[in-house]
């Protein structure tokens, strides 16, 4: 049942052997079980030699398209995730961590664009001190990580984004981030900043 041509487009030149049901089951189990993205290479290790792992993942992705759980790219591999449209109903019964506050999101954006970057540089760009709380919340979620030190006076720690950062935002790699030039052209303010008074200065709503 896995050889439905509609479900298994083969964009690549014909692989040595068509992915069979056994290979699909194995890939399904591996990706399902893993908390981390699974790479084609990781899958290839447990597949028979004459089966192309990429083709198996493509077939698996097709099989799950439109279902409650979907196969998506994450980092340099793939992982299963619940479908986006189900989120409002799932949130009713699944605990979700608080969203990152705006300050943390901006700090993360600075790190993403300027990495590797030091804390003083982050503070310079935002024009305000980086709070311990913000740094720790990003570290705790493993979204940023120290990436060595800059060889300059004081040898400040350099920060960069992690592979969890990619996974967290469903990115394949950093190149998927919008280009700076494109953002510079964008003049319309994002809807999260509607008023003159920044959210920080708004009376706490919760």
């Amino acid at each position, binding site marked *: 049942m896995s050889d439905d041509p509609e479900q298994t487009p083969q964009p690549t030149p014909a692989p040595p052997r068509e992915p069979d049901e056994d290979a699909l089951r194995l890939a399904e189990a591996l990706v399902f079980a893993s908390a981390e993205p699974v790479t084609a290479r990781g899958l290839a290790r447990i597949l028979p030699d004459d089966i192309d792992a990429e083709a198996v993942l493509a077939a698996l992705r097709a099989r799950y398209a439109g279902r409650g759980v979907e196969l998506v790219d994450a980092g340099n591999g793939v992982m299963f995730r619940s479908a*986006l449209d189900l989120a409002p109903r799932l949130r009713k019964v699944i605990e979700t961590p608080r969203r990152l506050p705006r300050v943390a999101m901006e700090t993360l954006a600075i790190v993403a664009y300027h990495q590797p970057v030091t804390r003083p540089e982050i503070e310079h760009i935002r024009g305000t001190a980086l709070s311990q709380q913000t740094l720790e919340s990003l570290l705790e979620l493993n979204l940023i990580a120290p990436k060595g030190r800059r060889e300059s006076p004081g040898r400040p720690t350099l920060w960069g984004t992690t592979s969890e950062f990619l996974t967290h935002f469903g*990115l394949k790699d950093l190149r998927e981030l919008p280009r700076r030039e494109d953002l510079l052209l964008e003049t319309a303010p994002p809807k999260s900043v509607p008023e003159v008074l920044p959210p920080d200065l708004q009376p706490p709503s919760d």
Partner: protein
Amino acid sequence: MDLLLDLARSQKVDLAKISILSLVDQFLAVIEGAKRVRLELAADWLVMAAWLTWLKSRLLVPAAADDDLESGQEAAEALAARLREMNVIRTLAAWLNARPVLGQDVFPRGAPESHIEYDRSRIVIEAGPFVRAYLDAIRRGTKASPYTPRALTLWTVQDALRRLADLVGSLPDWTTLEQFLPDHMDSPTERRAAMASTLLASLEMARGGAVRLRQEEAFGPILVRRGSGDIDRPE
């Protein structure tokens, strides 16, 4: 900086065109709002606004000195650049937030399974620690036990006399002195000691005529043979 950005954005103009009037209005609005919000943030805003006002005045009033004007323009440009940068950052932050965020909008497997098995059955012996352990053990052992010189089991002259007396009668012809050394003399020290003792014993017996000695050349082998005299057996 956030505040400046908001300000600049709300004006939809660049700094050079900031209206002092609207700035003052917002000034007042913030002071009004300060009653309800965190004071230090409002204070931040006031500092920013004051700086902005100064900057604006610099741009408006033709400066007495050229460098003053220049620094005013430079500062304005630097500020504008930073505002642009911050705008980029904010847009990116919003872009990121609009993505399906894991754990918020899309959910990963709640109960991942681990198929990793840790095999701790094998043991590893590394040469470094092994050798260190040996040295430590030896050192501790040496320290713990008092030094006791080993009692040497040397072949005495008495032993040699007895052995010579036993053996010399059974040998009809000249025999080298080494033949009379005891068996199992592994260590060179013991062997040399036994040789010396045997030589002394043979000289003693030769004096009584019990044996005859002969040496062909200096450092040559010493030959022994039964003499005509009686053999005194040591007790």
